[in-house]
């Protein structure tokens, strides 16, 4: 590149030069993208076909890892089940809550900005190790939750985190608590609905429920779609909460897919198998995203369409 710059530019066309400027400015990001994403992804794909314990060179084994994953590994199915449960429960709850609060905040109240900030804060700090530790403390054996229950007379030996039936719900709760980011997006979407629609509905005598179902929701479907895709993809990637709060326990009731993947790689020295798991996850997420995109024409209304269905 240097040599190109040093040559006289007389013969270069303006457009070519603009391209050059563009690529040059793009270069830092492009190099980062290649080195940090593309190369490791390619390596991971390669490792998924090998037996690699990280302590010596990988040994090619073809599709063995994938076969083992689908036929011999109980933990694979358990972790899929746990992760699916988490996504299918947490995402709708989170979005419903986000929409509810967004609608509440879509008014002319005093201190609106303040409320918005407070509701948004959990989602900024939420995904972190620190909050997970606090969550573990609150719902654990010596924690606030147990004390509160004891204060109203409910004594139990198992904490919420130690009970295989309730542990997953504490983590779902943590996910729902971080609804703030979805809420902001809904708020923006709500503001875009023309008030003329509501006015004409009022004139026609529609009640609040009708107005909600027949105006708000349909007009919001693009935003719902966006949030859904985002949250589902993020939901499948849940790791920190599971690692810190319960470490997959008790009895694998919170063994999230990525947590299982991590354990296979670093605790059991099975990097090749773990890479295969990673690519299986990519396929699963891609599949769901595809389904969502394919069905969007039937339920998502974009402004550009006439009238809406």
């Amino acid at each position, binding site marked *: 590149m240097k040599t190109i710059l040093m040559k006289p530019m007389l013969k270069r066309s303006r457009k070519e030069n603009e391209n050059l400027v563009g690529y040059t400015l793009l270069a830092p990001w492009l190099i980062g993208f290649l080195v940090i994403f593309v190369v490791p992804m390619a390596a991971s794909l390669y490792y998924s076909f090998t037996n690699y314990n990280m302590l010596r060179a990988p040994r090619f084994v073809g599709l063995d890892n994938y076969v083992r994953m689908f036929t011999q590994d109980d933990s694979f199915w358990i972790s899929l089940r746990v992760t699916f449960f988490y996504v299918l429960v947490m995402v709708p709850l989170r979005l419903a809550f986000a929409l509810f609060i967004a609608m509440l905040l879509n008014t002319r109240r005093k201190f609106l900005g303040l409320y918005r900030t407070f509701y948004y804060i959990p989602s900024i700090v939420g995904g972190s190790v620190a909050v997970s530790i606090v969550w573990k403390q609150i719902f654990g054996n*010596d924690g606030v939750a147990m004390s509160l229950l004891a204060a109203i007379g409910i004594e139990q030996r198992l904490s919420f985190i130690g009970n295989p039936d309730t542990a997953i719900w504490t983590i779902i709760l943590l996910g729902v608590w971080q609804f703030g980011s979805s809420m902001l997006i809904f708020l923006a979407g709500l503001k875009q609905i023309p008030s003329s629609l509501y006015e004409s509905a009022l004139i026609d005598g529609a009640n609040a429920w009708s107005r909600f179902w027949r105006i708000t929701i349909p007009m919001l479907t693009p935003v719902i779609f966006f949030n859904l895709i985002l949250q589902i993809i993020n939901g499948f990637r849940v790791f920190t909460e599971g690692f810190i709060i319960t470490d997959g326990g008790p009895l694998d009731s919170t063994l999230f897919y990525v947590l299982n993947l991590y354990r296979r790689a670093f605790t059991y020295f099975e990097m090749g198998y773990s890479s295969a798991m990673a690519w299986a996850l990519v396929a699963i997420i891609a599949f769901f995203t595809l389904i969502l995109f394919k069905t969007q024409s039937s339920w998502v209304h974009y402004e550009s369409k006439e009238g809406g269905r």
Partner: protein
Amino acid sequence: MTKRLRLPTIMAFLLSVMIMISACSGGTGNSGANGAGSASTSSKQETSSGTNAGSGNDNSDPEPVKLSIAWWGSQTRHDYTQKLLDLYTELNPYVTFEATPSGWDGYFDKLSAQAAGGKLPDIIQMDYQYIATFSNNDLLADLQPFVDNQTLDLGRVDENIVGSGRVNGELTGIAISSTAMAVTYNPDVFANAGVEAPIPEWTWEQFIDAMTRIADNTGKLGTESLIDTQTFSYWVRQHGQHLFKEDGSALGYEDDAIMVEFINMVKSLQDNKSMPTPDERAQYESRGKEAMPVVTGDAGVRFDWANFTVITAGSNPNLKLVTPPLKGGGENGLWIKPGMFFSVAESSNHKEEAVKFINWFINSKEANDIIAAERGIPVSSEIRDYLKTSLTPQQQDMFDYLNVALQYSSPIDPPEPSGFAEVSKEFIDAVNKVMYDQISPEEAAQNFRKVANQILERNAN
């Protein structure tokens, strides 16, 4: 016209270069390497290891050498080991250290990530459970040549102890302490409950009785959790069997009743509240050794290693050691084990300097004044004699304990086979399922056998 076209391009180029330089110099590459070990409790200097400033020429003494060293332990150990490294640097100014201590949890995860990157520390604290895995993958240097040329003086170390660091004929680990499984008990808890303190000949029946009475009379725990493979291995050995086959390809005991008996015992202890539930255990496990229930007076006993009272002497100086319960009509299940090893990475460029440090660690009086047997009984007989004159009560206890333990010991099992980490987790899960009333002990024992054998077979390849 050329100027108008050239300037934006040059500006863009300079901007890109500036961005890239600031991006590269900002991070020190730590976030990637530490991703695997992020949950481990690390103290102070968590810097990347393996960067050696020396020239790699082992023979020129005055060349400055930077040795990277990693160990696990609690804060007490981190503190005095750092003092030790500082002392060695004082005595040998050309040697400096880059230390990456951490807790036991995640220590080997971190090591394996470093191994993958070819960046193992020069000196690695190694455990009997993992030495086979690392050694068989050619990650640890064979230190026999250094013993032969006297850089490493093992003349005062018992040959059996030296031998425990030999894997497939290569001396890849130098034992730096020896220890044995021991029950630490809190005499105050026993006294408060009106229960007699344990004696070396006590049996499992007497153990169960004592634990139950402590829980009934005081509401405290009788014992901390017994559910781990080391305690179970002791149990199996008392039945004259071994947890693993000699070649590590499968479980070493045939009769599932052995495991069923063990599970029934721990289940009944949990049910009568003398042993914690897995949940309660998870809560206290994450604290350091100094805050364990037996130390704070919330439990009567804890199964651990012989150096536990030395480690916790600062928090509770009254704890005592006793041998684990005997099985009536059973065999001697205890074993004298190397507490831990120091290994040298095969990839290290400073093997000789690393070995010199290990030699000083084992044999020097001033080093052992600082170490004070916290890692276990010193392996050198000269050091043991030297320390005898200035032992704290806890250290004296530990030394005495090892003599008692010898009477109830049988030869040590071979190092744990590859795949042990997964087998260990499956064992705990199997027993916990019974603790949570989900399956019967018989089912748990059968499932464990099936899964464990699968894992061991897979890893034997």
